[in-house]
């Protein structure tokens, strides 16, 4: 018998759990400003996250999925994507959204039950947060197809969780990305948990990255809490996409340090010991240690950064809480470009009821 194909999946890590380099770092480490900017964004994201959970607990925000522990991956995506590229997120990409220009107030509006939270002004082509699992993967290949059809040298980064890789949407999309040679990078945020279902139940494959092989794409595993490993992998995959060399899959291995959402209680299915061990690998702390060890960060700077982030988040919360709800007629006004006659009566009824009840919000 002749061996037809063999495959390998590489795995990359540059820092140990404490942030000590394991060897030579990739060239991106030489750009200290970029590394510092990354660290600042991670701290801002974590500050925002904690505040949003507190808002939910006090009835001022809806159900919210914490990004705690994933800050490295989103930050790298936000840094590596060009402004002209398109980001196709799942629902735990806060760190990337912030760097793409989505305001914290917009993020709060979205999770606070207001559609204007997806009317992003600074990244108008990015796809909105996708709640139905993995469905966004199909949009990513559609956007990448548009780039290919028009001959544009732009690329797409699409995020999906480890649970999402069990869905046809992911598998069908990586398959098309291979068949059509599309400029797209799939970043699988493998945080070990799909609500309560552990990674081991999703698939018996040793890595998720190897699913790429079946689609004719390269698959690569990185330590998702290692800023340098994720940066190198995403930069290389984007260079490949921009250069017309096709798609790739990156499995970024991390850990969901929070509950699935504020409606979840992970203590029902996850041991305190496992969580404690995961905290020891935290990517934010790891980069902080690295910056400190290399003489690029000190406690005074840390104190200042924490204060700055708190102020930024507090201002966003203030703006969010001060935002009047839209008038209820908005539910009709954005359904179609022009309101069909069939809906005019319903719109009038919504407006009348709103007025009769002395409704607040903008004018109808």
């Amino acid at each position, binding site marked *: 018998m002749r061996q037809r194909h063999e495959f390998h999946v590489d795995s990359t890590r540059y820092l140990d759990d404490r942030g000590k380099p394991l060897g030579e770092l990739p060239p991106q480490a030489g750009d200290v400003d970029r590394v510092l900017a990354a660290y600042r964004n991670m701290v801002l994201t974590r500050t925002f996250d904690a505040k949003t959970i507190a808002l939910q607990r006090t009835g001022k925000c809806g159900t919210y999925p914490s990004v705690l522990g994933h800050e490295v991956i989103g930050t790298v995506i936000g840094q590596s994507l060009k402004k002209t590229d*398109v980001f196709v997120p799942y629902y735990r990409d806060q760190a990337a959204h912030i760097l793409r220009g989505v305001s914290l107030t917009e993020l709060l509006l979205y999770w606070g039950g207001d559609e204007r939270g*997806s009317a992003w002004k600074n990244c108008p082509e990015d*796809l909105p947060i996708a709640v139905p699992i993995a469905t966004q993967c199909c*949009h990513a290949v559609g*956007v990448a197809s548009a780039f290919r059809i028009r001959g544009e040298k732009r690329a797409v980064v699409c995020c999906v969780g480890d649970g999402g890789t069990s869905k046809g949407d992911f598998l069908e999309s990586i*398959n*098309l990305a291979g068949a059509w040679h599309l400029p797209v990078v799939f970043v699988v945020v493998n945080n070990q948990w799909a609500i309560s279902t552990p990674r081991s139940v999703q698939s018996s494959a040793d890595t998720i990255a190897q699913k790429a092989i079946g689609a004719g794409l390269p698959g690569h595993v990185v330590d998702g809490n290692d800023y340098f490993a994720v940066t190198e992998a995403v930069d290389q995959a984007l260079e490949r996409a921009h250069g017309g060399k096709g798609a790739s899959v990156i499995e970024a291995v991390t850990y969901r340090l929070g509950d699935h959402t504020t409606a979840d209680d992970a203590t029902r299915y996850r041991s305190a010991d496992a969580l404690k061990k995961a905290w020891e690998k935290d990517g934010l702390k790891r980069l902080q240690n690295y910056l400190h060890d290399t003489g690029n960060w000190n406690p005074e700077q840390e104190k200042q950064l924490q204060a700055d982030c708190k102020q930024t988040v507090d201002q966003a919360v203030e703006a969010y809480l001060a935002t009047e709800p839209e008038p209820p007629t908005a539910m009709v006004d954005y359904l179609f470009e022009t309101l069909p006659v*069939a809906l005019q009566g319903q719109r009038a009824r919504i407006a009348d009821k709103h007025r009769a009840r002395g409704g607040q919000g903008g004018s109808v």
Partner: protein
Amino acid sequence: MNTPSGQTVTPPESRAVNNVTLVEAVNMALAWEMEHDENVVLLGEDIATNGGVFRATVGLKERFGYRRVMDTPLAENLIAGTAIGMATQGLRPVAEFQFMGFIYAGMEQMISHAARMRNRTRGRLHCPLVYRAPFGGGIHAPEHHSESTEALFAHVPGLRVVIPSSPQRAYGLLLAAIRNPDPVVFLEPKRIYRAVTQSVADDGEALRLDTCFTLREGEDVTLISWGASILETLQAADKLAEQGVSAEVIDVATISPLDRETLLCSVAKTGRAVIVHEACRNGGVGAEVAASIAEAAFLDLQAPVVRVTGYDTIMPYYRNEQAYLPQVDDIVEAVEQVIAL
């Protein structure tokens, strides 16, 4: 100039093409719009080199290239979702589903994303796309190839659902669907893909969406239908005329959002309504039409609204499909029943 099916075009000034079937009209509309709007692209299974299993896209890959006429892998969910991504980039994708029986895998994308994109981004992104699918029974097709489940789509806010019932309306409605800035589910009654021919003016003139078409005026009863059943409904109207009953025939065409105005005006005039559709009765679009008439025109009615529909059963395999499909006599009997009251 020849159309893909080879029929001759009459004087260029009129651009009228004679003997056009419904499926050829679909092809003509696609070709016209691709010629005049470079953002229009086609994707689907077997649509490029093969020209589609019903030949709706025949010749288009040769004319516009594989870059704009794309064979996809065999994955309907992917087709539906890829079209969404393309549309957010300003393309106007027309995605073909080979049969309605296979469209269901794509429904999560249609319902959760295509229909909602404009609303959930407050107009930042929208989906100017068309999902085409042949549907309906009566062609001796295998299992899963004969259902009429248009009501599933009509129930979804944010989708337009359009069903042509003649070559001329197929041409004009498909042009309108492609030019529409929002998602349109365009369901093509395959039983009449080649049943009738008409002269179609290949002039790029779109018809209006969101409006019914009154195909025949009458005084005694309003017959309301869409899709392939229009054929039997018109035949029933002929038969009724021989009996001295004057039937108005309305092709709803855009079943959602529904043009209630035209239907109500007609019922106000005739005082009777019979609704005809192939789909099963329970929760069908006919129920929405009947309820709308009952709510808004009850006092105009001289008889209850009656439906002539498929049964609430699984569509039988083709040996029994005629027993399921509404027949001309069923419609005539229903009219006789409401006239007698």
